[in-house]
């Protein structure tokens, strides 16, 4: 199975938000701490709604929290 192509800055954003714990973030966005751990470790790509909720929790736009890395293709798009 290929690695997910969605990266995130959740760890850094938690640090910037006064060392917010994973538990606190999980409670704010309504998921379990295990899900936050999986998202941070890039093991799980959240739904669009959850991604927006996480960005909202940090007061950041979505693209400041999540980034998309295009997979390497044989032929590059022009």
């Amino acid at each position: 199975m290929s690695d997910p192509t969605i990266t995130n800055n959740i760890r850094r954003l938690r640090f910037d938000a006064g060392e917010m714990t994973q538990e606190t973030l999980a409670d704010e966005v309504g998921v379990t701490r295990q899900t936050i751990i999986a998202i941070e470790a890039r093991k799980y790509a959240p739904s669009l709604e959850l991604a927006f909720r996480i960005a909202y929790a940090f007061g950041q736009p979505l693209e400041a929290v999540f980034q998309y890395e295009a997979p390497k293709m044989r032929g590059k798009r022009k």
Partner: protein
Amino acid sequence: MPYFIYVVRVFERNGPIAQAILVAFLVAAVLHGVVNGGAHILMAVRYGAARGDERDAAIDARSLRVAYFALISLVMMGLSTIAFVGAISTPSSEGRIWVPTFSVTSQFVLFCFIVAEALRYLTQVICYRREAWA
């Protein structure tokens, strides 16, 4: 005849030893239920009510897909085997061919369900332990 009624009748026909085994099985089943229920209550008290989220739902859906695929595959393989054996078998002197009995079919169907259920739990364990994609 339903499978479990058939089993109980077989036990009834085989005397006190079989009945003792049946009682032991029922006691074990009740004990299993009590231990399982107790463990769930203990977990709920210790860690609070289980709160599922979208990742839990995704893992559950994935494990169900795996179990369904396994169940359908096994059943199709079983049906194919029956059809194949029926097609190649030679009728006996009385003109009979082999067909699976109700007991054999029941055992096979139960086996399929057990394998599917085991695969479902295995998939969940792998997804949670490895924090895999779901």
